[in-house]
């Protein structure tokens, strides 16, 4: 299935956690506060929020990509 997916740069990420607040449907936090991303394509209704999460990330650690499979 095609669709937008969220990708986190784990080196850049410093566990601000805004992304999980904005997008709890797709991002949860581990016990140390770092994001765990649902690897499935985003529901189309969530894409706008995901873009905002990417824009608002203080470390610019989030990117969105269109991917055909896996």
């Amino acid at each position: 299935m095609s669709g937008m997916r969220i990708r986190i740069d784990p080196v850049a990420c410093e566990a601000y956690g805004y992304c999980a607040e904005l997008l709890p449907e797709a991002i949860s936090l581990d016990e140390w506060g770092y994001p765990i991303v649902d690897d499935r394509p985003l529901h189309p209704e969530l894409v706008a929020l995901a873009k905002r999460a990417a824009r608002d990330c203080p470390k610019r650690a989030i990117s969105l990509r269109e991917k055909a499979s896996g």
Partner: protein
Amino acid sequence: MTPGVNPVGAVDNVHRLLGHPSDLKGHLDAHGPLNVAHGRDGSWQQDLVTSLEASGLTGRGGGAFPAAIKLALAQSAGPGGTVVVNAMEGEPASDKDALLLTRTPHLALDGAQYVAALCRAVRIVICIPIGRDSVAMAVNQAIMARARYRYAPVREEIVRPPGRFLTGEESALINWIESARPLPVFRPDKGAPLRIGRRQALVHNAETLAHIALIARNGAGPFRARGMTEEPGTSLVTISGDVKYPGVVEIDRGTPLWDIAVRSQPVEPVQALLVGGYGGTWVGPAHLGTPYAPIPLRTIGAAAGAGVIVVLGKTSCGLAESARIARFLADQSAGQCGPCVYGLPAIADDVAKLARGEGSGEDIVRLHHRLDQVDGRGACRHPDGAVSLVRSALAVFSSDVAAHGQGHPCPQWRKPTSLRFPRPVRL
């Protein structure tokens, strides 16, 4: 004539890495010149690609990626690049690349020359960590002899990165060469070529290059005559642990794990083998007959990794040894990714607690949860290796886990380690 066969090939036609002459004269007598200059029309290059494809050679540094595919990708990535010979061998239990380069440096260097010719690279860099001075001396002597006799067309130089566990990770190695930072780099597309500046960097394990040198000269036949049909060739394996004769052996691929281990003569009944390295997998008695080759190993959740087999005797505590390894791996984190920086020490603490008999059933549940959380979340595969090691320990030493988890640790947990660590690891 088989494609790629050099008319002045090896004196015998048996594919093996160990046992070749160490000096250039002996090397020339046995193998003849490199012959990479001829065939500017591309026919020589095509022959080598064909031979490598037919050989089925896979990378021996841990990735086990088909060498022919890697080189085909590199060929298309443009000229002017660097061939990086990876002899970092950060696995404390591995000696194979050091031994290979000390005993027969010309083989791996020749392999690098063939790869350089194939991909029109202009520079060969041999990475030997600080601390492995005798290896660097042997290779340096070889390079000087090759320069003196104008044997090697592409310039060969040694560099000495710091000898940490992760420096040999290929993106970390390139990062160090470029900017002196031996840290792995987040690469969204792991298949994209690595670069030094704008030119490509081709990182190959030293053992892989030695195989390439023989295949380039003798064709795929002798290589395929060793090992199993579906897993051809030989592999260097370092055996250590509770054995009388630790060391490096060259085995036919597909040899059962147990047959490899007995060569070093275990000094006591064996309870498990650690296969692949410290970021590898414990293999218990039920699977000791597994052939040493990627596909059969994968079916039991293991991998050949860096060619390491550690023998664990009955008088050792698998949980205590796993706790030490987990601590070592946590200490070796590059310190970049949160799940690795915080997850690995937490996991190491959990395993140590369990080893001491202080862990409860709840702790074991939490440990499993942490393993699931950390798996696959680093920029490199370092955390995944630690997860694999601990997961396999919980499975293979499951009866110990149950006993330790009820506050009845086996008395062996206090025994000093049989494993090799660069410095003592606390439990």
